[in-house]
């Protein structure tokens, strides 16, 4: 039985700009929004759009991601035919290779895709926070009788030169593609989400593989080749919430925007478009008498005795008496001891912040850095972590790190 459309999710990126957060795990596995990981968003979008077959392409630090995905049950992707499959590079009779680029990753899994004989393939990216109905996107693709479609966002003209831009005609047909140009001719930024007719995609992947000079990348090679051949290429306008969380500051910002769904546009309280995740299974959170919790998101297993303002706490975070957390993203299992001050920063999972230690600082003047503390780090009593620090090793009591 053929599938109409299957999804291929690019999750191999190292996410080097997230540094301390991605030392031991792939970027799509980075925790987000109190109880999710980034990959929950594209996976939930797939299921909510009716896509039941997803290949996840991994190669960098896949262990956490593999365990997290498991059999796909939390996303309803444990299916008899289809479902979710983690696809690392593998050895073939003709040899083996790491994924050399985004296009090569798909090329190496042509036989996976052919098992489902799909008409269309949607290429997704594992580092974006976005709620998008891919069935709308496919409808557009079909209406335009397109061979390739890309989801685009309007961005402010002054920022346009940071993006891959699609120049279109009145009918949304793409006439030109500009990768991070100095003089943008368009403000339609590619979201890195593509729908291909499978026969077209396969032909261009094979052609690209045969080209020894290619970088095997969708943006740099496949899309220009399609344009060269005057293929039917269209840009689908998306105007919901979309955020690339590839940097510490954008990850921090995207988390903070959850606290203001009325204005920022990402609403996790949408019963019709749930974001699914693997559950921590902890008890409800506990806020003690004398604690202060303002304008924050708190999830299962947290115990709060101190002060939490405008922050996001993941499962099982403990905030002891007298500790203050403000404008911070504090991931699962972290303990903030008495009197510690944690501000304007990202603290990864299972960190211990010692008594009266200081991590990060509210922006002042030109200084608006987001301090980052990596997974499992122990910050000693009275230690001080500056607002621009990236800490991935234990910090002794009383020491300072900037």
């Amino acid at each position, binding site marked *: 039985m053929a599938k109409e459309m299957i999804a291929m999710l690019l999750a191999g990126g190292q996410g080097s700009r997230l540094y301390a957060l991605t030392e031991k795990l792939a970027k799509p596995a980075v925790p987000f929004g109190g109880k999710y990981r980034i990959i929950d968003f594209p996976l939930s979008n797939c299921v909510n759009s009716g896509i039941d077959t997803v290949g996840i392409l991994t190669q960098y630090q896949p262990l956490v991601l593999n365990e997290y995905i498991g059999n796909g049950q939390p996303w309803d992707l444990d299916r008899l035919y289809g479902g979710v499959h983690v696809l690392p590079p593998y050895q073939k009779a003709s040899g083996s290779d790491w994924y050399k680029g985004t296009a090569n990753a798909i090329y190496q899994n042509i036989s996976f895709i052919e098992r489902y004989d799909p008409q269309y393939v949607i290429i997704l990216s594992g580092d974006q926070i976005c709620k998008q109905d891919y069935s709308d996107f496919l409808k557009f693709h079909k209406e335009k009788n397109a061979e390739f479609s890309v989801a685009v966002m309007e961005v402010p003209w002054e920022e346009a030169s940071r993006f891959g831009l699609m120049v279109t005609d009145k009918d949304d047909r793409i006439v030109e593609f500009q990768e991070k140009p100095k003089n943008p001719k368009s403000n339609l930024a590619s979201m890195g989400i593509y729908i291909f007719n499978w026969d077209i995609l396969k032909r261009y992947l094979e052609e690209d593989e045969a080209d020894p000079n290619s970088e095997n990348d969708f943006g740099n090679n496949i899309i220009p080749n399609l344009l060269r051949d005057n293929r039917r290429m269209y840009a689908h306008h998306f105007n919901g919430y979309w955020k690339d969380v590839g940097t510490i500051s954008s990850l921090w910002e995207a988390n903070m925007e959850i606290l203001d769904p009325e204005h920022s546009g990402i609403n996790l*309280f949408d019963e019709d478009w749930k*974001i699914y995740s693997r559950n921590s299974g902890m008890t*409800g959170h506990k*806020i003690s008498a004398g604690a202060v919790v303002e304008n924050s*998101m708190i999830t*299962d297993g947290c115990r709060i005795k101190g002060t939490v303002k405008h922050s996001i706490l993941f499962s099982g975070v403990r905030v002891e008496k007298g500790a203050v957390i403000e404008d911070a993203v504090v991931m699962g299992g972290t303990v903030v001891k008495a009197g510690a001050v944690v501000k304007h920063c990202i603290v990864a999972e299972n960190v211990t912040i010692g008594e009266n230690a200081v991590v990060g600082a509210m922006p002042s003047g030109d200084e608006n850095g987001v301090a980052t503390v990596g997974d499992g780090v122990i910050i000693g009593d009275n230690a001080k972590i500056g607002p621009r620090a990236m800490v991935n090793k234990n910090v002794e009591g009383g020491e300072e790190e900037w």
Partner: protein
Amino acid sequence: MVNMNTSALGIIFPNSYDALVPDLVNVRLMASIPFASRYRLIDFILSSMTQCGIDNISVMVNNNYHSLMDHLDSGREWDLVRKNGGLHIFPPFAEKAAKPYTGRVGALANILDFLRDEREKYVVITDTNIVVNFDFNAMIRRHIESGADVTVAYNQQELPESLMRSQSNDQGYYYTFGIEDGRITKIYVNAKDPGVQNFSMNIFVVERELLIDLINTAFVRGQEFFERDVLLPRLNKMNIQAYKHEGYIARICDMKSYFDENMKLLDEYNLDSLFSGHQIYTKIRDDNPTRYIEGAKAQNVMVADGCVIEGEVENSILFRGVRIAKGAKVKNCILMQDTVVEAGANVEYLIMDKNVTITAGKEMKGTGTFPVYIGKFQTV
């Protein structure tokens, strides 16, 4: 086999003591009563069993069991989707000649063929009105070491006032024990004695073959109640041992104890005592984290995911998906799933069942000794 599971199968009676909390079981049964902000009563026994390696579990539903079927589903959340064993739900067998059963004997007689076919050596039998993180392995070990025919778990506590007051046996039977050197020598039915008693937890360990014999015999004689009709007359003939449970325990005996036992978990010592053993699994709802909006004030509360809090809440237990609007005040309340307290409402000592709405500006108060219960889907 490596890591061989405990050689015991579990049998759970989810309807036991329904009559003690008539309001709460109006649309459900004892086992599916919400407890501790995100659980149902059965989660505690079920999770304890599966984590002790008991993965062949039968639930003997009798009536009002839709909510429980919905909650348990395939048993996946408790890791009970197994090729061998797993979760079985046994409703009463509808047949002309069969009359509805009232006690364990009739229920077990219905599944004798199933029991004969299983391979586990022991059977563990429980109710669900007791919230406990229970080590079944320790109890089974004691059962084997003591050479008992039957072992029954108990704890030491005073009898709840509501049981003491009750003048009839309409609400079912509860049991207290006389114990000598670990052996049960007396079983008292519905005793009214003051002071600390050896209070049965109705958790039994018995060899499967012996259970089949006992049930067979009792059923043929038209007997109903395992404790009263099977164990009590055999106190001299059989070695019936008592197993004392020392850990945390919450018994639901009436609305008051339901309220109090929830509230007791606001004390972190109690919370840690109950949850420090096995992890307790429950049905996943995929709620987002709870959001505290500007102006919210929360003091001494236990809150599940999916809530939105804009008003003030104090000394309360909030289940999943509760909404407390701006200016609303909630104090000493249990708010079950998806309840709403609208703007400016002021409530104290309420037990709000699922999907209850308190409309804007309303004021409603119970007292500590008499919390007011509001039924499912009501709007005040």
